[in-house]
């Protein structure tokens, strides 16, 4: 019996290129990656608008997550957009995140769009995965270090707004900021790189019970890393939009603040 030297796909005859039905849903398998592409693009456009075209995110006790920590620096009369000092950290963290890598490789690059489907043609042997330029994703742990510092500021902001001007204060914005920081913590502290640093790098779990306990704790969050990633993305936008509407006077003063 003869054996062909070539794999059945993509080098094989065209009759192998089956229509791949979505095994999880009646929806076509391009719908989910299209949704991801639209949602991430919308977030990117909104973030660019906030970072480059706005100079503040504080309303009374509330501070938008885009501006935490608040850094005001002027070059002559020009105010460097304060969010610029903040935005690079979440951009680096999410851009190198193991979940978002799956999301953007599937949605924007179609490598692959969905499982077992054909891909845009590359020159044979040219695909390099996360070697070459994308090897920068291996620096994810450094983005984790930066975002951990930022998380401390975000938790401080939540605590500070509860104690606004020396007395206890609570409003809808307080709850939004609290939910946002909880979701961001769930996302940040379920990070795969943190899981490795916490205890995953060990070969012997039983040799260091404290690190094993840490690893287990991170794993609890890690198994839903994708959901934390999405929820926290939405809570960041929601919190910012709420504070911005207060700043613009769209929502009435006093009632909501």
């Amino acid at each position: 019996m003869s054996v062909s030297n070539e794999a059945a796909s993509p080098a094989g005859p065209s009759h192998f290129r089956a229509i791949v039905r979505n095994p999880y849903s009646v929806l076509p398998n391009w719908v989910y990656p299209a949704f991801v592409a639209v949602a991430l693009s919308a977030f990117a456009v909104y973030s660019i608008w906030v970072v480059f075209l706005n100079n503040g995110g504080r309303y009374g006790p509330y501070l938008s997550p885009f501006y935490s920590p608040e850094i005001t620096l002027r070059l002559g009369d020009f105010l460097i957009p304060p969010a610029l000092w903040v935005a690079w950290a979440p951009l680096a963290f999410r851009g190198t995140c193991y979940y978002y890598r799956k999301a953007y490789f599937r949605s924007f690059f179609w490598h692959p769009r969905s499982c077992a489907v054909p891909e845009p043609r590359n020159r044979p042997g040219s695909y390099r995965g996360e070697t070459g330029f994308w090897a920068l994703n291996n620096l994810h742990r450094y983005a984790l270090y930066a975002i951990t510092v930022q998380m401390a500021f975000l938790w401080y902001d939540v605590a500070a707004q509860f104690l606004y001007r020396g007395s206890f204060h609570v409003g809808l914005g307080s709850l939004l900021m609290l939910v946002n920081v909880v979701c961001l913590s769930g996302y940040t502290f379920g990070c795969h790189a943190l899981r490795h640093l916490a205890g995953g790098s060990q070969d012997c779990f039983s040799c260091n019970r404290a690190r094993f306990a840490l690893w287990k704790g991170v794993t609890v969050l890690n198994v839903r890393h994708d959901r934390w990633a999405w929820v926290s993305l939405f809570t960041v936008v929601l919190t910012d939009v709420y504070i911005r509407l207060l700043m613009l006077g769209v929502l009435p003063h006093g009632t909501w603040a």
Partner: protein
Amino acid sequence: MTVSISPLKLSVFRGEADRGEMVAYSVPVREGMVVLDAVLWAQANLAPDLAVRWNCKAAKCGSCAAEVNGFPRLLCKSPVDDYAGEISVRPMAAFPLIRDLVTDVSWNYEVNKRIPEFTPPEADQHDPEPWRMQQVDVDRVIEFRKCIECFLCQDVCHVLRNHGRTDAYFGPRFMVRMASLEMHPKDGLDRRPLLKGDAGVGFCNITKCCQEVCPEHIHITDNAIIPLKERTADAYFDPIRALTRRLGRRSAG
């Protein structure tokens, strides 16, 4: 045993790599039927020369790996009830075809030989006492040992399937094997140079299709490939670790 009223329309790839076609068979549906049952019914009653590999029919041998409606699956673990309308069955697309549903998966065994086997440190090799492992350490590597070598993960991996980079990447199955060795508390070898080099862990871009198709539900990406990527990053991509290693060597020297 009940027989349903409407028979199943089963479409099976017949032929070899250079010539082949989808052939339709009408198969009576029985309660609890899986796609392998339908294929074997067609083989027994309509097409005695239909080539299909199978063995245990219990999702434990991995022999009946193929593609149902274009998606890699074990035929014996695919209930007919899960599919509406016609069911198409094709061979695994990532491997050279022998005939009909049978592919040549021998490349995988050649790759396997390139992975250094379990090697305890010198002191442990001559330890007369039985080794003791804590359950938490056993649990971690036992997940990887559940692999039945069906090679569905290799089939669905786009690096191998769509880009044909068998020259550069060992594939998810062998990332799992290397994880089982690297994370074993009694193994003393460092396979990170192999991982970064010939094994090509950097070629994986974390799209998790391998994890989706694994019939043993091994968390291939989360528990094997990503931890191996992080270990490789420790050795090759972390500038602070590289600096501390260099300073450590200098002070030791």
